[in-house]
């Protein structure tokens, strides 16, 4: 009798393990998908390492050549693109926006999660609502604001409007709400610590994992921003994405030049991704769970 029960339980356990096993077909399809993901990037790299005579080649080249350095040099020497300056601009803008976003969003997230004040829920609802607004559609007057401020063509035009985001505030609030016990804050209060001291010494260290993810996201987002820099900056002081478009417009037949440019533009993101890929994936998946 008990024998039957054990056997049945064993069978159920084996069944449930088998239920989640990936079949070889799943592996094959997944590997195929990933190959599709990588292929355009691989091909970009291949063309960037060749000379322009590969352009008409049939079949197209699939193996890297030896002219990457030469092509990259040509990118930096292309006057219309201002590529070196664009790299510096993008690095500065992305770093400043990322740091500031993390600071202000942590501060606001902490306030929403752990401090009591009247109107808190309504104000938080407002933050969430702003995430649904396509702010891009306001670029015409935003541009006029920049004209009034004499900021067109300057780097602060692509920095200041993005120093803190609704998405970031919400994300940090969600994390702070579950990561920081109320007792910790009350204990610090009893010790007479000011609110900012509590934030700086108690809350900020606990928020570090979420802050890192937010910083990475923001950095990548700013680095990839295109429409607004294209509208507000001058062609002689662009960001990387804008510079790529300039390169594309000026030499749309010089494939190796353009592809070398795209390779350089992607390298910083690629490095970030290789180092922090696990955290980025965790951040996306956690954010999805809470949304």
């Amino acid at each position, binding site marked *: 009798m008990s024998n039957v029960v054990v056997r049945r339980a064993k069978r159920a356990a084996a069944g449930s393990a088998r239920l989640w096993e*990936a079949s070889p077909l799943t592996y094959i399809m997944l590997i195929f998908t990933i190959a599709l993901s990588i292929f355009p990037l691989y091909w970009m790299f291949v063309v960037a390492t060749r000379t322009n005579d590969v352009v008409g080649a049939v079949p197209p080249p699939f193996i890297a050549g030896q002219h990457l350095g030469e092509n990259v040099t040509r990118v930096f020497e292309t006057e219309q693109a201002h590529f070196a300056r664009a790299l510096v601009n993008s690095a500065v803008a992305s770093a400043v926006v990322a740091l500031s976003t993390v600071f202000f969003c942590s501060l606001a997230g902490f306030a929403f999660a752990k401090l009591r*004040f009247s109107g808190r829920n309504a104000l938080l609802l407002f933050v969430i609502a702003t995430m649904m607004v396509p702010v891009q559609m306001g670029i015409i007057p935003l541009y006029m604001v920049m004209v009034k401020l004499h900021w067109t063509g300057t780097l602060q035009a692509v920095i200041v409007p993005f120093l803190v985001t609704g998405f970031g505030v919400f994300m940090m609030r969600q994390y702070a709400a579950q990561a920081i016990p109320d007792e910790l804050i009350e204990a610090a209060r009893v010790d007479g610590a000011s609110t900012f001291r509590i934030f700086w010494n108690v809350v900020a260290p606990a928020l570090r994992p979420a802050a890192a993810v937010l910083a990475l996201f923001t950095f990548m987002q700013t680095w990839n921003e295109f429409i607004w820099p294209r509208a507000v900056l001058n062609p002689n002081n662009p960001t990387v994405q804008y510079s790529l478009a300039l390169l594309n417009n000026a030499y749309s037949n010089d494939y190796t030049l*353009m592809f070398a440019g795209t390779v350089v533009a992607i390298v910083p993101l690629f490095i970030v991704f290789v180092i922090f890929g696990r955290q980025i994936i965790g951040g996306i*998946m956690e954010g999805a769970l809470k949304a």
Partner: protein
Amino acid sequence: MGLDLRSAPTRAGGTGARHASPARGRARLARLDIKFSPYLYISPFYVLFLLFGLFPLGYTFWISLHHWEIIGDHEFIGFTNYTRLLTDDQFWNSVENTFAMFIIATVPQLLLALWLANALNRKLRFPTVFRMGVLLPLVTSVAAVAIVFTQIFGRDYGMANWFLHFFGVNNIEWQANKWSSWLAISTMVDWRWTGYNALIFLAGMQAIPRDLYEAAAIDGASRTQQFWRITVPMLRPTIIFVSIISTIGGLQLFTEPLLFNSGHMEGGTLRQSQTVAMYMFENAFNRFQYGYGSAVAWMLFLIIFVFSIINFLIIRRLAGGIK
């Protein structure tokens, strides 16, 4: 400082009166701190959003009610810009393109992402490697991707045509026709976003209790049946979230079609792939008709709003109906 606050009263005695006033001052400061710090901490977001988000959006509406160009008077003309838009073929053309690409891109993208998430949800070796693999396209920059794909879809030497010629298809000039340019641009969008959406679906799938599947398996439900009867209905909130995000993003499509047409805001000689966002940009920054461009922006805003809601309703019904 913290210690002082508590010890001051206990020291009391003759000096009590002298100590009381700074202590009270400090207590008042602490009260102010507790009362106003929260507002101070959340204020940067509101200040910035009002200044660079809400004000521009509202001001866009105000401008759209004017005949407003780079020079000259700003004449108030009510809704004339909007009535003009309703009979503007170029505007409707851009609406058609935007919706066509939105549908061609989003429907297969979400189905593919669902399938991909289901595969990633299996017990895999090296799960992180697979997840990073599908997310890789997202961390590349839009402009770079657009440039590479534009070459892949080149008429004479493009890899897409080279591949298709094995199937007897003659060279396609992808930019030349509506359908071909829609397909090419949608491919770029899907390549970039499918993996990201798959990860969001995957997160939702992992929250579904596993005993549900075990019970279904014991009842003899196949994997396909489990997928449609358990996974999809349980995933409804995530599906709604992803669809709305895709709607907001998809209807604002801009960079991919712009670079696909070598930076020409018209989206091709016959405007084959000009989106609404591009048409707005063209009016405002190429023709300097800020008033008219702003009307386009508000129409787009309305369209996005309405479609997010329709989307929500459809998916709620669809995903709920499969039970």
